[in-house]
């Protein structure tokens, strides 16, 4: 589903660059190993500004979802209703990302708990790709 294109900034550039390369990364603190997403200038846990990008497996599961019928986001309105799922990463369940679950029917049977795999989607406003998630059949 065509989405708004994220505009990377100093803190997020590494994440979005990795998406363009087909890799999923999460910011990891070099001082305490804390993982956080979205990335921040400082570690939420210890305050350190020293971090690296840790590559994730690209697998996760559906933590929960809702179904949008009347979005404020104009770029998405023509695709209503659509699923907004929350994905928790297999490697780090505390890290959550969003997904429209491409390929999953928009009904009341969205398989919460099902395993998903990352894919990378084009976006509307630039060449930036974003991470999306598909249910593993």
């Amino acid at each position, binding site marked *: 589903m065509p*989405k*708004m*294109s*994220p*505009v*990377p*900034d100093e803190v*997020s550039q590494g994440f979005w660059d990795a998406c363009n390369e087909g890799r999923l990364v999460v910011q990891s603190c070099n001082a305490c190993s804390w993982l*956080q*997403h*979205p990335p921040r200038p400082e570690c*939420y846990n210890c305050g350190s500004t020293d971090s690296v990008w840790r590559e994730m497996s690209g697998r996760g599961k559906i933590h*929960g*979802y*809702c*179904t*949008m*019928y*009347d*979005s*404020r*986001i*104009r*770029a*998405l309105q023509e695709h209503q*209703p*659509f699923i*907004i799922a*929350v994905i928790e990463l297999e490697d780090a369940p*505390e*890290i*959550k*990302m*969003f*997904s*429209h679950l491409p390929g999953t029917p928009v009904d009341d049977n969205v398989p*919460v708990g099902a395993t998903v795999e990352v894919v990378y989607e084009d*976006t*509307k*406003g*630039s060449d930036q790709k*974003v991470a999306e998630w598909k249910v593993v059949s």
Partner: protein
Amino acid sequence: MASTEWFQTDRYRAKEGLGVWEHKGKAAIAGLGNSPTTRRWDGDLSTSLGAWAILAAERALDDAGITKDEIDGVVSCPQGMGDEWGAERGYFAAPYDTEDGLSGVSAHWLVKNMGLENVKTTYHAPGCMSTALVAGAEVVGSGEAKTILVIRGTGNMPGRYHQTPGDTVGGPQQWTNPWGWQLIPQIAFGFDQYCRKYGSNHDRMAPFVLNQRRNGSMFPEGFYYQNRPDDLNLTVDDYLASRWICKPMNINDCDLPIQTAGAFLITTGERARQMKKKPVYILNHVQQRGVVRSSLETLDETEEFSLSIAKKCYEGSGLTASEVDVFNPYDGFTLFTQSFLEGFGWHGVKHGEAHDFYGDDIRVEGPHPFSSSGGNNGNGRTRWWGFYDSVQQLRGEAGARQVQIKAETAIAGAFTPQISDWLVLGTSPD
């Protein structure tokens, strides 16, 4: 007075472990005022937010039985909740030659245009009347000012509002807007998580929503009472057939944006005892600004935030859950109100029990008169009806809404479990 400072962040009571509020019972709410309500502003300056803020303030003065000469402070939440009027539509002659007075009302705008000549203290508080009220409680409680007006105008301009155009997005929304994640999905998702954890479903919200409308039918200051009484006759079938906004949230779980202004007069307990109405003492004020781990709030975080709010309210006032008579937590989306009910443990409600409680007798005449104001859902979007009703209940002036149980203490607050401000009120300062 051409500008106003934000109230100092370190004066909000935002942490656990602060003990009983050092100014407990020193400040009291002695006046209430609300302007009329309407769905949208039509461009008539006599119904602008500024004009209506002055009207609400005058009504609060009348309610307290004092004149404007006695006002020495003003605290305002200067932002409305809708879009701006916008320069492209063209401004008007002074004092409507800027946005101030049209889409929001600053403290200095009120001081100047109401002719409050003895005001020495003004503050702004962001986001919510609730934030202005807790700031006002501290201003008077600490002795910084003696008799103040706390105001907010909240408007609704013509047309759809808060639409998000564009094909690119930076800043914090780069993580959310591509997927359409904003506040509404957050609340809908959180409610779905709640139902999965505790084995409930959206249909079980109907008794609460219908009761909010019923309470609104007894609230003469409210939007529906004044403008759309038929909407207060919502049936279970109507509710269950309502169009989805973000399933499991439907249109009747959402509050209706309106145009109105409200004012609360806060003074010292000593002075309040000489005014016209029975004083309603402020026993504590609390702020919640929860930090979430990720781009979203998990159910665990929501429950943690609500428990923290309750803990702070109880600790600072010295009250326990069983001593809270009137309880008006926020309902601007009905789907998170259960978190407050369970976090506070009002009437013994524990996690997962709110929907059973809603199915019990929560009418104002009954033993569990939950949210006796009817909230935003029953009265339109202001975020202050719960405070307004709590004062009226403790005065014994809530009319047809007057609860039949004892009404000597009250707790009211808005907005969400993550971001909200709360007052604990009592008929006694102790």
